[in-house]
């Protein structure tokens, strides 16, 4: 008999815990699979079959994969996609991390408002955000007008936003609030004593940042990079609204342009693309998993007093505040301001002198017409609250199990991240098929929308929770265990309170994403169950840009109220948001 070799790690769990935990992992994996398998199988099925006019699947075919790989536009689109993904990730991470660093680690005055600003911009539906940027940077926009004013009249616009740089800026800036929130979660729980030690040893702030802060936060930053990268690969709004008009094609718009049968459903090509993306994501996650094998090196919340200490910037405090303010202007104030301006115009013709004489509240009157929001607000809030409440605890548990390397727990991360690559339309059709065929009467109910919505936003919750849990040292849990606490109690009494701050932000984030999502609920909700998104949909289909802007402004205001309520409630219980 060969000797059984045990892992040499001293921190390994005893067999008892292993046995105790495995069923839990299996149970959660089963729950996740039940939620995620149907759309995944549907996705794979649609990529391998033709779609019949009634939406059912026809003959087996590999044509969609063939088309994908033999498209004459493939090389150019792939190149553009990579540039776009890297570019927007760099823009988002630079903006978000800088702001997070200032807010979490310095004593710059007014830094507390950064969260409010981030939440404010997360409250703007993504499509409207893109529209606002196009209004700003477009041919008739104020930026081009300003350049024309300074540089004199030139042939054509000085800045052509319908280009790859336009796409990178808009997507990158749009993602900055998310990177800010995620980076804050990472930084907040990073032990500052290493930084202090480095500073004491005479390292300058840049060196400290490079050698300590950046390194310590590496897994968190990588996870974030992964998220933005994947998002950029499957994003559609920016490529469609910005790229297509400038003839810059990326993979998603390439598929959009190639799917023929504009009048009949055809999901084959986008299905094939999503399956390829899914494979890439699995590979990336495996790589990320390998990387965080050494996660212990990065665990910074240890048994010692871990609360990060604030760095006194001295005179540079005001400069840091200025950087924050500039970021706020770029990320939030400019687009929201543009929406406000446009919403007060009878029609949008640029930021001209005459336009200031034409202010009107007509658009708001149209939007707020009696009955427009009948029943919809309550349903919408219900959808957001339920989705976030379902996603956050589940992902917190998954992330903890995955980070603590419970047997098989790496699978949880994989499964929970899969929905990231599902195109919204394919996902809504998949869930439609599932619910309409269920023997239990879920079809058309708000519950069915909540389930689908929870699946859609699982990956976001997962990344958020992962970043939070990654940095909690096992010592604390071990201490509790040694004192006789069962695993359940360890999780509830030790882990949860430590990651609470990250989870509270995560909840709000998922809430904001869930309520502004249009495509998914639209297909699933039944007649008579109205959600706000439908009003938004009407405007998107038929509304003038000025009405759309008015809707956006009202929406942002509502989200601000919700977020503020949340913020103050959380503050009362000392859970910083």
């Amino acid at each position, binding site marked *: 008999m060969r000797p059984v070799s045990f892992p040499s790690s001293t921190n390994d769990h005893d067999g008892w815990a292993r046995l105790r935990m495995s069923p839990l992992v299996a149970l959660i994996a089963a729950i996740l699979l039940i939620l995620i398998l149907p759309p995944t199988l549907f996705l794979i099925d649609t990529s391998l079959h033709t779609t*019949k*006019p*009634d*939406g*059912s699947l026809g003959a087996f075919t590999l044509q969609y994969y063939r088309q994908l790989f033999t498209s004459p536009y493939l090389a150019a689109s792939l190149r553009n996609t990579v540039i776009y993904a890297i570019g927007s990730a760099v823009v988002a991470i630079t903006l978000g991390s800088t702001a997070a660093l200032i807010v979490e680690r310095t004593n710059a005055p007014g830094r507390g408002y950064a969260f409010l600003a981030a939440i404010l911009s997360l409250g703007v539906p993504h499509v409207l955000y893109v529209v606002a940027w196009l*209004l700003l940077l*477009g*041919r*008739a926009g104020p930026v081009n007008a300003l350049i024309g004013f300074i540089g004199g009249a030139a042939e054509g616009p000085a800045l052509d936003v319908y280009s790859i740089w336009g796409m990178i800026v808009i997507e990158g800036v749009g993602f900055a609030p998310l990177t800010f929130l995620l980076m804050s979660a990472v930084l907040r729980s990073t032990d500052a004593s290493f930084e202090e030690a480095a500073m004491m040893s005479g390292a300058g702030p840049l060196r400290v940042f490079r050698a300590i802060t950046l390194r310590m936060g590496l897994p968190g930053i990588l996870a974030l990079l992964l998220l933005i990268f994947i998002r950029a690969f499957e994003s*559609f*709004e920016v490529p*469609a*609204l910005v*790229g*297509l*008009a400038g*003839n810059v094609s990326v993979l998603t*718009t390439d598929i*959009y*342009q*190639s799917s*023929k*049968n*504009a*009048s*009949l*459903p055809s999901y084959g090509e986008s299905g094939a693309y999503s399956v390829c993306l899914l494979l890439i994501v699995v590979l990336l996650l495996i790589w990320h998993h390998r990387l965080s094998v050494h996660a212990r090196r990065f665990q910074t919340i240890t048994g010692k007093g871990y609360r990060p200490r604030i760095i006194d910037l001295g005179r540079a405090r005001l400069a840091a505040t200025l950087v924050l303010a500039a970021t706020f202007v770029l990320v939030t104030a400019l687009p929201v301001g543009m929406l406000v301006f446009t919403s007060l115009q*009878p*029609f*949008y*013709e*640029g930021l001209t002198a005459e336009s200031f004489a*034409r202010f009107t509240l007509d658009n708001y009157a149209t939007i707020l*017409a009696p*009955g*427009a929001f009948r029943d919809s607000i309550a349903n919408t809030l219900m959808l957001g609250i339920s989705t976030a409440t379902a996603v956050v605890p589940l992902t917190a548990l998954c992330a903890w199990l995955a980070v603590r390397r419970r047997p098989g727990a790496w699978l949880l991360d994989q499964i929970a991240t899969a929905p990231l690559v599902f195109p919204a339309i394919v996902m809504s*059709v998949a869930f*439609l*098929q599932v619910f*309409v*065929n269920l023997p239990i009467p879920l*079809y*058309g109910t708000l519950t069915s929308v909540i389930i689908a919505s929870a699946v859609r936003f699982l990956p976001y919750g997962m990344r958020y929770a992962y970043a939070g849990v990654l940095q909690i040292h096992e010592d604390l849990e071990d201490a509790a265990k040694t004192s006789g606490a069962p695993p359940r109690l360890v999780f509830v009494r030790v882990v949860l309170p430590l990651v609470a701050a990250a989870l509270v932000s995560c909840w709000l984030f998922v809430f904001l994403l869930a309520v502004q999502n249009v495509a998914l609920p*639209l*297909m699933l*909700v*039944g*007649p*008579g169950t109205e959600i706000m998104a*439908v*009003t938004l*949909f*009407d405007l*998107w*289909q*038929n*509304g*003038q*840009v000025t009405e759309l802007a008015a809707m956006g402004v009202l929406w942002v205001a509502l989200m601000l109220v919700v977020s503020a309520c949340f913020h103050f409630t959380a503050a009362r219980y000392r859970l910083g948001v």
Partner: protein
Amino acid sequence: MIERAGSHRLRALRSTVLSTLACAALLWADGALAQSPEDILMYRGPDREQKLIEGAKREGQVVIYAALIQNQAMRPIADGFGKKYPFVKLTTWRADSEDIVQKAAAEVRAHNVVADVVEGTGAGEEAVEANIAQPYYTPAVAGFAPAYRNPTGLWAPTRLSYYGTAYNTKLVAPDKVPKSYEELLDPQWKGRMAWRIGSATGTPLFLTNLRIAWGEEKARAYFDKLKDQKIVNFGAGSARTLVDRVIAGEYAIALNIFAHHPLISKAKGAPVNAQVMDPVATTAATMSVVKGLHHPHAAMLLADYILSKEGQGILARAEYFPVDPDVAPLPALAPIVPKIAGVPENFVGPDKLIKYTDSSEDIYQKLFR
């Protein structure tokens, strides 16, 4: 003992079978008295309305999936219908035509039918293609122009759309406005025109219209020249959004947009106007009845109502164009109605839209992408 129990069980079984048969007979008799949905939908007797009302009272509700704007069109329709037939509860679901048919088709295949009636541009023929439409008879369409009607009764037209170009009046001088398709070939418009892709009523309709009106050869020669104009392919976003871009000065001209949209903005003072060209592409939104529907009587009452002068009037006030020739469109929008403008129209009916869209899309892919 065992035998006893066995015969006892046999007796029980016999009585079960008998009672089941009796029930079936009763149900059959009931079914013979009540009509099948097909009979109700096709009923032409003089007591049609009376019968529908009686049946609808039993059904108590009706469900429509429609592409009508909720606030301005669907709610007034629901209010009017509710006043006329207070015993029927109307519930609605709003989406675009493609999603409407997708959802209804999924319901039919799963034998879990919620929708009774579907409405939308393209909904009718998509429902026919998906094999979920059921023929129905409504006297309301009798006054409609024959060209707009469907002889098989699988759909009825509810509203019309006219397509034209939008131009920015600050960028396009009055004497330079292209008034014909030929004038769009003027080099001064190169790179300054946009059209909407990704929808059957976008680029494919523009191409289909000319292919039908001119014949393939002439149309193809024209497209070969048009491709050099480097038209901007406007993705994602509605036809209305494209008009807004013209107002903002992003593009001088937009092709194949809903011709009344520029008029609505022009009335507010926006620097935009519409131009219709010979031939004007016209399409109809259509209404179909779903196979396996649960409320056939109420569905017929609803269809009748939407197609009635009252229903058509509501749609007209919501800035749609009525099919009923006796119902006038909004005066502000009338100038682009081909009959009123004196420009010939080419009705690209649902059948033609289905027949030509794929090949027009191919032309787009080859020449204009």
